[in-house]
């Protein structure tokens, strides 16, 4: 799409997908570099967006840059399409880019997400855009940017293993449950954004392109399709994901990430799929059968 076409779009005085074409070009350069160096944090001239920092401005800038008029967009927050911030961002692109939106994972060409990777496996050609609050995996060990940049350059990641080891010494387990650090393509240690570690294995050899945008911190990074992504661990304490004794109250799934929902003040609670689309698809498949019993 050229500039004229973009501007003629009926988007209320703003360019297609809000950002001007110069800014998109600058971000695309950053994205290309990010794809070329998997897991490396590329600084970019992040712009103010009409949503607050920390609410997905990095992801939105990436989405605005990669999306075209023929794309179909899905936006999830905590795995759900109907959480308020997901709705707000989906509306933003429906309004400023006029693109088709969907809640169905398989229909989407671009998926912007906060804190989850969809349960339905992604396919080649899809782009998963993560919203990232703190892109630097070493930040809580070393707050200084000057230091962490050097540590990445020298692959000086011993401190990260020490941190995980200290968890084991203190708790008997690695006590990191989300934003669990990964090593990408055998080089950079990367923050996968605050997804639960349950989702980490989905990043490995994923056929879809994974892009990460941190707006406030002005960093972009990427995992190209079919890239090795290893969660950090030890030989005697291998990486493990969360497991539940329960299964989803609605669809009976025993293999998906479950949110706990408190139903009363007497300690009553149920577990439901965090991925609303996955849950709905499963319920629809079960519909033809008699739905007297949803639990397998």
């Amino acid at each position, binding site marked *: 799409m050229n500039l004229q076409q973009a501007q003629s779009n009926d988007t209320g005085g703003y360019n297609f997908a*809000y950002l*001007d074409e110069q800014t998109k070009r600058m971000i695309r350069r950053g994205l290309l570099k990010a794809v070329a160096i998997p897991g490396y944090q590329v*600084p*970019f*001239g*992040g*712009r*103010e*967006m*009409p949503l*607050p*920092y*920390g*609410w997905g*401005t990095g992801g939105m800038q990436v989405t605005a840059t990669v999306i075209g008029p023929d794309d179909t967009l899905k936006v999830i*927050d*905590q*795995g759900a399409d*109907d*959480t*308020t*911030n*997901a*709705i*707000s961002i989906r*509306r933003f692109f429906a309004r400023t880019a006029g693109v088709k939106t969907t809640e169905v994972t398989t229909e989407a060409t671009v998926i912007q997400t*906060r*804190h*989850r990777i969809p349960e339905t496996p992604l396919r080649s050609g899809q782009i998963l855009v993560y919203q990232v*609050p703190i892109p630097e995996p070493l930040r809580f060990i070393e*707050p*200084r*940017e*000057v230091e962490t940049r050097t540590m990445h350059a020298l692959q000086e990641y011993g401190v990260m293993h020490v941190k995980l080891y200290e968890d084991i010494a203190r*708790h*008997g*387990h690695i*006590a990191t*449950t*989300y*934003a669990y650090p990964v090593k990408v393509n055998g080089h950079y240690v990367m923050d996968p954004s*605050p*997804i*639960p*570690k349950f989702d980490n294995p989905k990043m490995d050899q994923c056929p879809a392109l994974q892009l990460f945008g941190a707006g*406030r911190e*002005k*960093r972009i990074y990427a995992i190209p399709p079919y890239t090795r992504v290893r969660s950090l661990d030890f030989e005697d304490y291998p990486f493990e994901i*969360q497991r*539940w004794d329960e299964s989803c*109250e609605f669809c009976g799934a025993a293999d998906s*990430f*479950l*949110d*706990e*929902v408190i*139903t009363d003040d007497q300690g009553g609670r*149920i577990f*439901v799929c*965090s991925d609303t689309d996955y849950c709905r698809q499963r319920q629809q498949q079960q519909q033809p059968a008699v739905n007297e019993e949803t639990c397998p």
Partner: protein
Amino acid sequence: MYVAVKGGEKAIDAAHQWLAESRRGIPETGELSVAQIRSQLRLAVDRVMTEGSLYDPELAALALKQASGDVVEAVFLVRAYRNTLPRFLYSCPLDTGTMAIRRRISATYKDVPGGQVLGPTYDYTHRLLDFTLMANGETPRGPEPAEQPLEPCPRVLEMLNREGMIEGPDGETGAAAADREPGDITRDPLSYPASRDIRLQALARGDEGFLLAMGYSTQRGYGRNHPFAGEIRYGEVAVEILPEELGFPVVIGDIEITECDMINQFGGNETEAPRFTRGYGLGFGQSERKVMAMALVDRALRARELGEEQDTPAQDEEFVLSHCDNLDASGFVSHLKLPHYVDFQSELVLLRQLRQEYYQKADKASEKHDNAGSVSRQESEA
């Protein structure tokens, strides 16, 4: 029953409607016009322009109206708007020496060429609530304008500079910095260590409250740098641009600014005569508190360049510059309001497991102790 946060779309629409109604307030009271805000809440407008880094009093007033007077929210509106504006060119550096002065004071000399001009200031008001403002709409008149125009007001620090008593305006790195194009953090991300031009830009956009606290901390011994308010001036200056095809500068308008030159403790060594150092602050409109705080922090951040120890928060460049922007800060703090079900659930799962293991261990230990006929140690562990 399971009642999750569903129906978000309707809720958002309703929230927006309710917000609009709340913003308008009681319908029987008159609606504030943007012009009223612009002229009667001018200091709020100035702050929104400074931190929003867009000189447009009308839009700043509109932002304040739309934000129900929440300054940080208004700054946000202005920044988001500013971001969509095309850039034609950069202006020439402002010549604040030719400012049409409204206020100009120096705390270092009793009298200076051009004189001390108090101007419109709250400084010497008694902070007693003025109930007449509530009772009637009396229009106070200002003093009669002086018959003689002001004499030229050269900048105080320039006079010191001529004597060699103080470093040049650009500090030690003057010559090198003058040749380089100044950076722009709205185009390129901040990287560390940052040069002074970049630092000043970040501080100029920085939150007044944050800078005030940082500047204050230097006065209380956390990176003390012995400041004197060499000069504070507020007034109008002309903004000039230099179109390439013309080859000479053209004035495109006047803006109101406040400038602060701080004079600070001197250095010096075997090769260099001792002389005063500087801290600098600049803001749109009348923004004295902001520019004074900015000048203190600017000076504190020059610690590395001036070979001073850097062991306090105000001297820590990454700490100050990474946290001074109120858009960054309020955005990230407020994002805690967004759902974190998934991360919280992950922590719940782990914590339950840890607690279960803890009690299993405790049970085992107590069995052992029971067998041995002793419970005292188990109690003390609990």
